[in-house]
């Protein structure tokens, strides 16, 4: 039988649509309200809450825990001190990405890693003689994400410690009397926090957050709203934007960190003191320039899009529902030069946007390409340009409460018209 999240009682009571799907063997809500766009709007405009408990969670402890993770994870765990968290990836020895996840460091020898897929055997087989114990704590823990511009106000009302958390920091706190960890993390690209609590405390934590959030118009949001926000945030999704190398059928289905645009994670890759799985291959790829692709953002040319649909006798659709199918990318000479893996109309950016991989030489922001659509049952190419991701990155995502308000950046993010 499909599992229920620790928050299930509250989630079920809030779900007005009876629409459920399965995520990592758990029952999860597609949308609580009839309008997923309303839930999404709450993330960008007020505050939303999301049950991310189905993630796999591993506790990694022991005197060699840092050395172990340093050898497995591509991003340098030594730069993540206690009270900090890191978005990270782990690769195979050919330099292909297996998976991504977030690691929370609780102490010198104490880590919690969250991942979308099971990884216990994979990690255990890599322990060798190191003094490390890995235990799966997936069912013991609930995770409640609180995301949006009002999330800090909601959290601060429950636990004042949250107010001073910097981006990707975490702290121990108490909510409704229950011990929790509050981290400034999330999958929406907005100001946001996640609360990790014991499964038994989940209902009390949900109730406290809902009550503290009510004056701020808090809205539970489901999978659809989350998947909308994450495309705008330029956050990759496994089995959509990439596949785990160890389960891929061939190299066409594998990606390297550089190809996924995660090169920023590889700071210190030349430090000989930290060998990690895939390092040699990644360095070789970097030095020889052998990347096949580069993950970029695409922004569809709105005029060309409107013109082509209108000429076909249609109202140009602006559908915010994420499309997780390959869409082909061509250059102006009709040569296929890449493919998009996630596509949507972004209500915040007010454009059709896609996460796509293109040939590395086309990855410069502003480069014009063409994205293939189906209009009146025929393939039609519509102009688009390469853009940096995230498409939407408000200052509040990383700023502190007393930071001065920044002016709009000259630097193009969503649009490079």
């Amino acid at each position, binding site marked *: 039988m499909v599992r229920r999240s620790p928050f299930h009682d509250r989630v079920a009571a809030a779900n007005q649509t009876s629409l459920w799907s399965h995520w990592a063997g758990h029952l999860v809500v597609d949308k609580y309200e009839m309008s997923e*766009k*309303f839930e999404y709007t709450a993330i960008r405009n*007020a505050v939303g809450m999301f049950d991310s408990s189905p993630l796999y969670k591993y506790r990694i402890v022991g005197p060699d825990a840092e050395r172990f993770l340093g050898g497995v994870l591509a991003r340098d765990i030594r730069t993540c001190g206690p009270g900090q968290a890191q978005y990270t990836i782990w690769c195979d020895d050919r330099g292909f990405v297996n998976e991504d996840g977030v690691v929370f460091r609780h102490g010198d020898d104490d880590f919690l890693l969250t991942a979308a897929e099971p990884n216990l055997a994979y990690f255990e087989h890599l322990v060798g003689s190191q003094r490390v114990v890995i235990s799966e704590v997936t069912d013991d823990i609930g995770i409640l994400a609180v995301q949006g511009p009002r999330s800090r106000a909601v959290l601060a009302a429950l636990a004042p410690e949250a107010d001073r958390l910097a981006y990707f920091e975490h702290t121990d706190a108490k909510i409704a009397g229950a011990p929790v960890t509050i981290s400034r993390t999330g999958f929406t690209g907005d100001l946001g926090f996640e609360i990790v609590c014991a499964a038994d405390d989940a209902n009390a934590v949900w109730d406290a957050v809902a009550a503290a959030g009510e004056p701020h*118009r808090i809205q539970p949001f489901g999978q659809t709203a989350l998947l909308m926000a994450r495309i705008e945030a330029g956050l990759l999704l496994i089995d959509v934007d990439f596949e785990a190398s160890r389960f891929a059928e061939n190299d066409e289905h594998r990606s390297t960190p550089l190809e996924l645009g995660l090169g920023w994670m590889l700071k210190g890759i030349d430090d000989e003191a930290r060998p990690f799985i895939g390092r040699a291959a990644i360095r070789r790829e970097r030095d020889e320039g052998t990347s096949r692709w580069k993950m970029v953002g695409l922004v569809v040319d709105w005029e060309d899009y409107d013109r082509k649909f209108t000429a076909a006798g249609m109202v140009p659709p602006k559908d915010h529902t994420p499309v997780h199918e390959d869409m082909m990318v061509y250059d102006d000479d009709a040569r296929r030069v890449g493919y998009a893996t996630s596509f949507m109309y972004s209500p915040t950016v007010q454009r059709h946007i896609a996460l796509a991989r293109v040939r590395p030489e086309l990855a410069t922001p502003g480069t014009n390409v063409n994205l293939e659509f189906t209009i009146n049952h025929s393939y039609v190419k519509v102009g688009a340009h390469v853009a940096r991701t995230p498409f939407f990155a408000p200052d509040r995502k990383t700023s502190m409460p007393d930071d001065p308000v920044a002016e709009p950046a000259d630097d193009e993010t969503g649009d490079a018209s």
Partner: protein
Amino acid sequence: MSDREYDAIVIGGGHNGLVNAAYLAKAGLRTLLLERRHLVGGAAITEELRPGFQFTTFSYALSLLRPNIIHELDLVRHGFMPLLMPSSFCPMENGDSLVMGQDRNENIKEIARHSPHDADAYDQYSHDMDMVVRAVKPLFDSVPPNLFDTSPDGLAELADLARHLRGIEPTVVHNLVRLLTGSAADFLDDYFESDVLKGYLASSGIIGTKVGPMSQGSGLVLLFHSMGEHDGHFGKWAFHKGGNGGFTQVLARAAEALGTEITLNAEVERVITTNGKATGVALTDGTELRADVVVSAADPRRTFTEFVDPRELPADLVDSLRRYRYQGTSSKVNFALDGLPRYPSLGDRSDMFRGFTNIGPTVEYLERAFDEAKYGWYSTRPFIDGAIQSTIDPDMAPPGKHVMSCFVHYTPYELKGSTWDAEREQMADNVQDTLESFFPGFGDLVLQREIVTPLDIETVAGLPEGNIFHGEFLAPQMYFFRPAPGWNQYRTPIDGYYQCGSGTHPGGCVSGGPGWLASKQILKDLAARSSQRT
């Protein structure tokens, strides 16, 4: 004697003035925008009248904003943020209600509760309206031809129009004509039997205009409001983050980023003309500013009879402006609320307040509200378009509190035997009493109310007779004839003097259309002039 020199001066910092100035600056003109008040926005402003409570004093929703403006002026970068209204709520006098939402099947079930017949009729109506809107949209979004221009260019523009109309399906043309000439009530009767559904839809046929839903001409108003577009859906409206003042602040930032200089507290006294040509403006403080192009975002009356001397204008233009009808009939009553109203039959539900709350349960209710206006009085039980923006935008009110914008119809500018100074409280009492009758206990929630009569709209926002559209949406004042026959292409008889307010095509509502289209015409004229010189 001039203090400073510009390529273009735009008079008036409402949304059309801001849009126009932004486009002119984008084209490289050194552009100055002059605003009489201490803030830009015109009739699209948000004011904190009580600590933490943001009032949308006048306009209250993002209605017909042209999508190309969002892109061309790069508004997203400057904070443009439309907020979906996920519901529409129509309380009924028998205590029942119609709640429309985002899910088609839910809407079908809800309509079928009132009339099974109307369930699929609603889909047909929506489809038919979409087809009409699609047919009209190219005309809405372009400079209209001048019916009286017999030059080759003018005739070519008319021929283009004829070709476009000939390309439209006959049934769509017929629906268009029925809307342009008929009443909203008749049009809706062709589809529906449910009183509440017709009341809900007919309200779009009266807003801002001195017509009842049974009056010929209300069909045109219904169509006009259906021209709204939000994220690719026709007829859908949105709130802007921070209210409509939030939107005009975005426009101002965009205009400034493109190079527009904005000067506040600068009231224009007159446009300076030399030999039939505009050369600048004079402010009431005596400052004179020079520019080859002067654009008035004000209404036609001020544009033609106050900023310039009507004796300089052709007699037939002056005469048609004299007959141009304003007759504002709308008011606002805005409330600061201690909590959300309760609708008894819906128990503790409050999600229905996230969009418009339509107090106009039947066509007859609306028409009876109009009856009093015909004879110079305001409605005892008015039509109210309520919007509790704070239900979806927490920035509009302190935690746990709310603001409610109420658009009120009918409240004629000219009262028979009384004045608005004498009647304002009673008018607001009528609004509050009406709300109390639908939401028992409403009055206990009221912390403060702001009353905005047609006279206030005139004196504060500067809109003559308080007409929110810079002049009525009547067929003789639209398209070829807005604001006057032969002067529908944003030009004036004075060379270099242009108009870009809602008194020009396509008309009122927060569309930005007039400001954008006027900029196209101005830039076209400048290009023609410079090519003549070379």
